[in-house]
């Protein structure tokens, strides 16, 4: 099997949410079922971020349009694992839960091995892995390698009717992305760009953005912190004595705070968005944020003050 990739082409995406829902259905990820249990975000983006039972969301951001006959730029995005070639989550994972599926290059998950150390959460340059508090396991896109091994595309791709998502050999997806980019440029989308060709050693989700990287909610020039390498030193210790790593974890938290820079965190409790660089609340949800950055980082950890995740 050649190296594979998902291509997400925003020139064809209609923001219909079908990928998000197909992901939940195929992977048997529960949605709230009690009456009035869901809260509305005030936009089309629901739930507002990834969570312990949601591995893929569509994002929606609005800006004033730059094209003469398009007064609005309504950028649809895909927030999920990007399946890095040099996947820091996989390299840091002490238990073998996250690993690169060698045949396809997708970064997949064996949740049965998860020791809930949360290294992956801190390592991910895209802030993707979430914890399922009920199960104490990491929850992240698996790349649907179960489907890929059977010769079928990931669930999100199969369901996409406008053909904004496609799946195939990575080099073919990149070549297709070039064609799509040229099409967008010819339609006047001058900030259109391809994302994923080189980032983090090359991603296995190639994206073609109409309005530029940040407009579609992605990280411009993502970096793996050198501390990930340092952290790897702790890995054998953590892997062998998974239950007795309190000290090791404490070190990790210190390190983690160090390399989560240039990132935003979302607190589902307060519905605030926080800059991890400055500690400032970028966008208020409800009321003032009273917790420190460190508290925000640690609140989802097993030994943090809240014990489990926000689920």
């Amino acid at each position, binding site marked *: 099997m050649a190296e594979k990739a998902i291509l997400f082409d925003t020139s064809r995406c*209609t923001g*219909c949410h079908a990928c998000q829902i197909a992901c939940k259905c195929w992977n048997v990820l529960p949605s709230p079922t009690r009456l009035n249990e869901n809260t509305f975000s005030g936009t089309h983006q629901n739930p507002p971020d990834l969570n312990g039972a*949601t591995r893929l969301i569509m994002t929606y951001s609005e800006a004033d349009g730059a094209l003469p006959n398009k007064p609005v730029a309504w950028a649809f995005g895909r927030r999920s694992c990007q399946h890095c070639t040099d996947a820091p989550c996989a390299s840091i994972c002490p238990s073998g839960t996250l690993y690169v599926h060698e045949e396809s290059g997708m970064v997949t998950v064996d949740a049965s091995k998860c020791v809930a150390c949360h290294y992956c959460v801190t390592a991910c340059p895209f802030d993707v892995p979430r914890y399922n508090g009920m199960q104490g396991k990491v929850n992240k896109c698996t790349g649907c390698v179960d489907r890929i091994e059977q010769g079928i595309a990931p669930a999100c791709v199969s369901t996409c009717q406008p053909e904004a998502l496609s799946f195939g050999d990575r080099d073919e997806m990149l070549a297709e992305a070039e064609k799509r980019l040229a099409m967008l440029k010819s339609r006047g989308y001058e900030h259109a760009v391809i994302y994923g060709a080189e980032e983090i050693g090359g991603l296995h989700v190639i994206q073609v953005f109409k309005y530029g990287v940040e407009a579609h909610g992605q990280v411009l020039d993502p970096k793996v912190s050198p501390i990930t390498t340092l952290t790897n030193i702790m890995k054998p210790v953590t892997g062998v004595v998974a239950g007795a790593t309190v000290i090791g974890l404490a070190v990790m938290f210190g390190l983690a705070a160090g390399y989560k820079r240039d990132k935003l965190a979302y607190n589902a409790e307060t519905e605030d968005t926080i800059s991890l660089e400055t500690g400032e609340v970028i966008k208020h949800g409800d009321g003032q944020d009273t917790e420190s950055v460190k508290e925000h980082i640690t609140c989802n950890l097993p030994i943090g003050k809240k014990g489990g995740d926000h689920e």
Partner: protein
Amino acid sequence: MTSHWCDFRNTDVILHCGSNSVENHPVGSKWLNKAHELGAKWIVVDPRYTRTAEMADIYCPIRSGTDIAFYGGMFNYIIERLIEPNLADYLAGKEVPDYNFEYLLNYTNASYLLDPEYDFDVESGLFSGFDEATKSYSNNSWRYQTDSVEEWDTTGAYAWAVADGVPEFTPPVVKHPKRDMTLADPMCVYQQLKNHYTRYDLDTVCNICGMDKETLELVYETYSATAAPGKAGMILYALGQTQHTYGAQNTRAMSVMQLLLGNVGVPGGGVNALRGEPNVQGATDMGMLVNEQPGYLKWANTTDRSSLRKWLESQTNSDGYYTNKPKFMISALKEWFGDAATVDNDYGYDWWPKVPSKKTDPDYTHVSTFELMSQDVIKGFFCWGMNPCHSAPNASNVRRAMANLDWLVVADLVATESATFWKAPDMNPADINTTVYFLPAALIYEKPGIVVNSGRWLQYRYQSLEPWEEAKPDFEMCDLLWTEICRLYEDEDGANPDPILNTKWDYYIDGKIDPRTVAWALNGYRISDSNLAEGKVDLLPSYSKLAADGSTACAMWIYSGFWNNNNAPLDPSAQPVGRRDNNDESGLGLYSNWAFSWPANRRILYNRNSADMNGKPWAADKKLVEWTGEKWDLVDQADFVAANNGVPVPPDDKSFFMLWEQNARLESYGMVDGPLPEFYEPFESPVGENLLNGALSSPCMSFAEYESTKHGDASDYPIVATTYSVTEQWQGGGQTRMCPALVEAMPAQFIEISEELAAEKGIESGDKVRVFNNRGSVEVAAVVTKRVKPLQVHGGQQHLVGLTHHYSWAGVFGTEAATVNDLTPNVVDPNSFTPEYKAFLVNIEKATGGER
């Protein structure tokens, strides 16, 4: 649709007006993307910047409810910029590359002379023939001047009309219209059209509709470029066009636009209604309407269709294909009443109920049904697969009306608002004496049967799982009810037994009701060799074999040919409706061997118009039909007479043969509210005057006089509101609110508000907003967005808001909410009886305690 979904890719310009198809028809967006990538321009005209607008090249805002001003401006633009400057050249025999005069002159009624009495009075906003007392028109002056008359030759081509077994009727006379092929006569349709729309200049249209002139002109210029021979533009519309007090005139306006541009009957063209539900096309075809029975044949009524003879004389066209209507009608009656239907009893016609049709009669259409409940006229109600307490306009009026019923039967998948109307927050169950019966219905996947999509494609679908617990397919519920009703009549007698006991009901296989035998009845069969009760049938190949002498039975002539394989009558996969061959021999996406397209597997209606007067296609690379000099080379099934008794018929101008004049109508006497689309403001308008004529709202709109409509004025309710759906939820939400992942993806209904209006009212995204008018008050969540902007209307700033309507009180898993349709007015279009959901007035404020 006159075309079909896959035909989108053949277009040069896509125009969305009154539809948001990538949101509401997400599967079809694939074909729009294909067109776009092949180079088509894409225009969206909509009050909001929608998901579809994001996909398009040009977005043009419009005030809700002003579509006819927009289309009228387009007609004026086409006439001023394309027709007038080139007409003399064309008549002098010169090449005109930018406009298709051959189409206009030969395939439309542009050259027909109208009655000298035909008139339109700008001062009053009325066409000739208006009767003030009844608020209705006589259409006599909207007809053509007659050149010559011709009678049916009942010894030749029309011998069937006087054959044994055919009921007696006087055949119609063909009145050949007078024409002026130079389009100079002041009474010709073209001159009248031109004069009518000179008022619709760019400035006036912008002032009414609220877009800027530059954008409007770009839209007109881009779309009217499809007037060039060989170019095609398609209009995609949905409820945004039909749900108005002039909704049918909106549809007429789109048709006139497409005819002026030569876009009807060509690949990538057409007037394309995107139907709202997976099978709403089928429901419409099957005659779930008060005025039409299956196959668009009119029901019996108490005036011009009070007897079979009157039906045949009023409904049979003098020329064209509908001269065959008696065959369809007699075959339908033979299926209804079987052996009991004979020529001596008018094939049982009088057993049919007659729709009251005098102007003074009560009205039994959708909206007025609830008025009749309020008036104690209707005491029992079968509510089958619909949820009027949620989806009908002025929904609080609907639930109060239903509280007046003695009994109510609801057949549905889930306990909808209608099934639990007494539980509404404003109802007191102690005061309500209605007995409610709930019949749990099987979901689409729990029953076999046929669905029809917007492109008229019929497909047989197999059952994939057993219905849940006691739920049953609708046809099984019908069967249980019907057999019990018949048993009661036989055992205990009852009122009016003949229609009941003479109705044929033999749709069983192995003693069980089965949709396959219903399919035989819909397709039609020769009676002499068939006995449905014994499982024996002699299926007809197509409707061309139907007879008016009682020898054939057919419940649905337009579907005929969809189930015609006599070798395996019980095997859906062996029938045309079961075809699954996705090879496209046409190269145009016709996919003629996939499913069956009514009528006659014709994929693009009116396809004669894709070729010129010599039968040569306008676009050489998009050939549907072509005259070779000896015969017609048919890529699609011909929608014209290509051969007569096996002899090829050379090309002529009879390109719309479903009309008696066989040319399309730019002007039409077929509408009840005017022969040309004229702009009127909605029932509730934010402005005090109509800038185009002296009538503010449509003089013919229905039910505005009902007290329950509670008209609101702009002084109290200054904001224009419209309603729509989101892709994550579906209509009343009964089905989608049961899917947790869909509820999670769109957990609430909301109001979209511009940043400007939100600032004025102190509202932020996520706040609870109270939306109110004279009919109701609802609280919904706010979405403050750049995608809605105030418009400049009549020189001032006009705010617009839009509401979704998927939640209410009957949620089990979802979100409890108010009923948005408490706000919408129960006034309707007089042609189609469709309510005006899409333009009405409200005011808004931040709800008390409305912060998130």
